[in-house]
């Protein structure tokens, strides 16, 4: 028998008995960021493909909520900081080795762009909107002229936004559950999938909904594949990774993960969407909400379970 104990009474808040430095604020931000990334990506992508009229909601309507999502996300992040008054230090330097630094700067680019994109499409939802001041009207016209370059920037940065959250977690090799390069793509695909689901929710155009349902179905399939790959990777890796995987294979997080994320968040919506494509009548919002819920749960569980996984003691 091996007995390994700390005999000097260490009980540092947030560290012991196991790491719990990040609470609801972080998964909330990760979810909101992923959702925003998804919506923006599809908005810019379909605009660049010239399908602006065909997929009105995707390009013009859904992005209206993105600024709100991003502001809420940033607020959650601020709440998480323990030295809040110094948050501006983030913007005094770019540290290429720190994914958190990329994230800070990416948000610095994406948030204003999302505000601008939403602003120039305000009249789609509020037809009587009037900017009142001439300089604002000039600004709007200016941005509309540069919509194409903006869209390109948005495409690139929304991908970065979607993937960096996963890369950020996977860079922590101290938490074996996170330390896998699959986490980046997994979060990216999950973010895009929730974005597609949101677009389905807002859309009133059946053809748009059908397209996005197909996109979503594809993304869910990819996500399921990545999850299986994730576990295969863990179980074929070192002991600490095996222990991390066991958190979900009989450990305390087994039920929440497989029921809330995989079943309710991925398998069931996929099934419902297949049924829908086979012309069964399914209320369209059910799979969409389930997908969004699944995305939120995925991030919560990964963030909390990751802090339990460890190398020592």
């Amino acid at each position: 028998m091996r007995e390994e104990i700390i005999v000097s009474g260490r009980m540092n808040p947030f560290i012991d008995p196991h790491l719990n430095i990040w609470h609801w604020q972080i998964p909330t931000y990760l979810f909101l960021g992923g959702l925003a990334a998804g919506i923006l990506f599809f908005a810019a992508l379909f605009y660049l493909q010239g399908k602006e009229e065909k997929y009105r909601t995707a390009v013009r309507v859904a992005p209206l909520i993105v600024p709100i999502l991003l502001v809420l996300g940033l607020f959650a992040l601020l709440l998480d900081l323990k030295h809040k008054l110094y948050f501006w230090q983030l913007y005094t330097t770019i540290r290429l080795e720190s994914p958190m630094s990329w994230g800070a700067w990416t948000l610095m680019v994406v948030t204003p762009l999302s505000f601008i994109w939403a602003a120039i499409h305000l009249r789609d939802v509020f037809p009587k909107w009037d900017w009142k001041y001439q300089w604002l009207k000039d600004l709007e016209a200016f941005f509309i002229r540069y919509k194409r370059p903006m869209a390109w920037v948005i495409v690139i940065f929304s991908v970065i936004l979607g993937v960096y959250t996963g890369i950020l977690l996977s860079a922590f090799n101290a938490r074996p559950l996170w330390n896998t390069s699959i986490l980046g793509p997994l979060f990216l695909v999950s973010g895009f999938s929730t974005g597609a689901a949101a677009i389905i929710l807002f859309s009133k155009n059946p053809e748009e909904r059908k397209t996005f349902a197909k996109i979503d179905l594809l993304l869910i399939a990819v996500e399921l594949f990545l999850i299986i790959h994730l576990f295969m990777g863990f179980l074929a890796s070192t002991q600490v990774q095996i222990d991390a995987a066991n958190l979900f294979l009989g450990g305390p997080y087994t039920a929440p993960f497989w029921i809330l994320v995989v079943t309710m968040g991925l398998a069931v919506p996929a099934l419902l969407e297949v049924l829908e494509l086979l012309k069964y009548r399914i209320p369209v919002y059910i799979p969409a909400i389930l997908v969004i819920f699944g995305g939120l749960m995925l991030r919560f569980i990964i963030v909390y379970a990751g802090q339990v996984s460890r190398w020592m003691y």
Partner: protein
Amino acid sequence: MAIDTLKCVGCGDCVVACQTENEVPIGFCRDWVVEVTDGTYPQLEIEIRSERCNHCENSPCVRCCPTGASHYAEGGIVLVTQNKCIGCGACIASCPYDARYSHPKGYVDKCTFCIHRVKKGLDPACVAVCPTRCMYFGDLDDPKSPVSMVLKNRKYKTLIPEAGTKPHLYFLI
């Protein structure tokens, strides 16, 4: 720093001395003592280790800090600049040794190898107080320093070398 596990009795003096010297708040600690017992009665073995931040050469905490508050100072000592720290907790999550903690004042804190004492030519508080004199501190690049001398003559190990952090805390076994 090198610590002789054959002499350490696990008294915790290093923990209290660090706490008073560095004014660490009660309820927090920068270093701690681990006791590992192997075997079945009466074939038993114990290893006692006084652990702290390893001041790694390839430290994940410096790498992941978004503001540069976590940095390498002179001699390879890893320090935190308190007024650059935003308290995001990334460094805490990135340390495989769980050596950092969130100070009540908001910034992240950890062992500093008592750099304020080292600058005056003194040993860190834990090394200076240890009653069994099992702790050695010094410049690894200087072959005559106490640390170099003792590493030359004894077998030693580091913690989780496979994590790739290249720690500078050696346990003599």
